């Protein structure tokens, strides 16, 4: 069983243990009847060393989900249900939602770090890069000493391709791409197991974006951290992620291996998103995008939240909300769609066989010894 996956995914053949398990997470903004359910019952598992992509449009709740996982959510955001379990090592579990401030202080940055979208705002404009990097090191590793922290900061900068003489620079003296590199270096300073990246390259030009992503992937291969990569750019995720979860209106609607999701989507929203990105090759095809616009979270439609924009909607979709359930096929895929879980066969576009079925089956293989 393991022979089939060896060439394509060497990293995946190694221990593929769950690192972060999110179950039924609900986040509301505000309270009472007017509360906006920004995240409704999200289930997500991040494995060690995995790049998990979280795709969704603005307002789909993808950033809220990330803030809730790291407990960075601020009022009026409130976690109203679910669990987030972090497994620092096999057999040990930390309940992140129950952890107190002091417990979180130990975990944050040393185990779970975050790269924000806007490095411009995330860096302190009046402090040098060096002092911001050493601040993190000296807070968590006081034994390192001043000189040791300086050396380590220089090493971190070198790791992301910035020469050590920039340690004395202030954020405004760096270009946008360099600032984002500094943020990545800072996030990796304590060699965390999990790095959460919230649209880390959205504000950058494509060439800089590609540069940073390649560096990031090299670092991941070397250091072995897991990445939760949040972006609206599904075509980018397909390139860099191992598996992808798609969010719509606060709900996870599909999760699959990146290649399987690209070649054989199972949810109509995923299909629509894929058809919203013009291709760089091949004959030019007329694309339609998705009709309508994303719903207002204050007044979500009944039943499946996607049904008003779905061309395959059944009667049942208007009344019953589908749950994110495993699909009958192999591959550890999940989808929240009555077309996949109902009695009738799914439309042809949503039933394309997944490429290399034995390869796509890797997620289920992984959990077995």
């Amino acid at each position, binding site marked *: 069983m393991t022979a089939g996956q060896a060439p394509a995914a060497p990293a995946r053949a190694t221990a593929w243990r769950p690192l972060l398990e999110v179950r039924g997470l609900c986040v509301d903004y505000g309270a009472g009847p007017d509360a906006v359910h920004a995240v409704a019952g999200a289930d997500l598992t991040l494995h060690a060393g995995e790049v998990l992509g979280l795709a969704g449009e603005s307002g789909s709740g993808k950033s809220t989900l990330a803030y809730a996982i790291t407990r960075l959510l601020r009022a009026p955001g409130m976690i109203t249900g679910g669990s987030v379990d972090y497994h620092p090592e096999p057999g040990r579990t930390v309940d992140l939602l129950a952890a107190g401030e002091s417990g979180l202080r130990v975990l944050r940055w040393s185990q779970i770090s975050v790269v924000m979208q806007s490095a411009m705002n995330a860096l302190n404009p009046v402090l040098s890069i060096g002092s911001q990097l050493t601040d993190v090191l000296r807070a968590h590793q006081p034994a390192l000493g001043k000189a040791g922290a300086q050396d380590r900061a220089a090493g971190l900068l070198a790791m992301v391709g910035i020469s050590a003489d920039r340690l004395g*620079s202030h954020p405004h003296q760096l*270009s946008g791409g*360099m600032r984002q590199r500094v943020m990545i270096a800072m996030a990796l300073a304590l060699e965390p197991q999990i790095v959460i990246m919230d649209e880390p390259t959205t504000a*950058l030009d494509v060439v800089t974006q590609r540069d940073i992503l390649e560096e990031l992937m090299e670092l991941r291969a070397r250091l072995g951290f897991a990445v939760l990569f949040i972006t609206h750019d599904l*075509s980018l995720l397909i*390139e860099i992620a191992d598996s992808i979860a798609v969010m719509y209106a606060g709900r996870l609607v599909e999760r699959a291996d990146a290649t399987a999701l690209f070649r054989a989507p199972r949810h109509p929203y995923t299909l629509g998103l894929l058809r*919203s990105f013009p291709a760089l*090759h091949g004959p030019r095809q007329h694309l339609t*995008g998705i009709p309508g616009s994303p719903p207002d979270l204050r007044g979500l439609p009944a039943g499946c939240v996607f049904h008003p924009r779905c061309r395959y909607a059944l009667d049942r979709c208007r009344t019953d909300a589908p749950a994110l359930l495993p699909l009958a096929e192999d591959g550890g895929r999940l989808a929240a769609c009555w077309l996949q879980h109902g009695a009738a066969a799914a439309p042809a576009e949503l039933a394309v066989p997944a490429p290399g079925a034995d390869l796509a089956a890797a997620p289920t293989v992984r959990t077995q010894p």
Partner: protein
Amino acid sequence: MTQLRLAGQPPATGTPLLEARNLTKHFDVHGAARRRSGRRALPQRRRPMAGAQGPSADSGPVVVHAVEDVSLALAEGQITAVVGESGSGKSTLARLLARLIKPTAGELLLGGRPVPPGRRDARGYARQVQMVLQDPFSSLNPVHDVRYHLSRPLRVHGLPTPGLSLDETIISLLERVALTPADQFIGKYPHELSGGQRQRVAIARALAVRPRVLLADEPVSMLDVSIRLGILNLLGDLRDTERLAILYITHDIASARYLADTIAVMYAGQIVEAGPAQAVTDDPAHPYTQLLLGAAPDPDRAEQAPGTSASRASRAGRRGTPPSLLAPPPGCRFHPRCPHAMAICAEAEPREFEVAGGHLSACWRHARDLDDAQAAPLLQLTPHRSAASTPLAPHHPHPTREET
């Protein structure tokens, strides 16, 4: 001289609707950026002890070379895409074409006739050439409803449609941009509309004066992914049904390939490659276009083995950043980053060379008459540039910084 005439124009129409000839725009630099640039130039220009008169006293005016000698023709019933990174001058080009700013040099021809300089007959020009801006969240006035936004251009230009009342004209405009049922949208305020609907209102406002040229500056980059295609398809329909000449400015080369008939690629204020859309994207001739295409997200690439020689080669050229437009490099502006740079690239600006029918590239590699010395590989290190080479990058005085 980079003087690229865009190909792919229908020969039947003859003169393009709007033509730019050798447009150049330099922005004066004031304040800190000027002082800094002066200080930087100092050690190269004179001996250290002689620098008592102030930094830029002898170095002439300090300018940002935002757009340099760009020629472009917009033909009826054609979409021309201008693709480039932020700071490449593409938005400045759109503003020049809309006559929002005055060019430093060069001229505009509308329907084959030169446009007089200055603000004379600005309204008449605006009746022919309209612009759609990037951000529909700020380009519509939040205190006015859709009716007001669409009635303004009609009133300002005194353009009642014969036989139609003002409201009927507005409703027909809304129907043209597929905001239906139009009578429900006419009384709405911007905050009641989604991003895509707002951009449709902005397009309807541009269409109100029945222009022949539409300049769309990043019209979809602020919109959600799932609704971008709707706006792009609307622009495509306007080209086909109303024969508008459309300029589509974007940083997304995949969307340019999808929508445009011709693509012009801009780098550091110059057009480096232009031609039929598919020829440019499928068979890029200029190294910068190749770099841009190699960097664009491409799901198909995920299935190829990573780290292949092709991706490494493209990465070699990717190192570095666009040059400072205060002092662009001599010769080809891309040569410090170019993996194929030759001796001549650092000395002389490349002309346009035709690589195929209507497909032009401003790259010396396409010249056939170079001697051995000129074609010798330019020995250069392509180190990972530190910010020292682009001290102005964070607060560039360039007016196109807002696009990303």
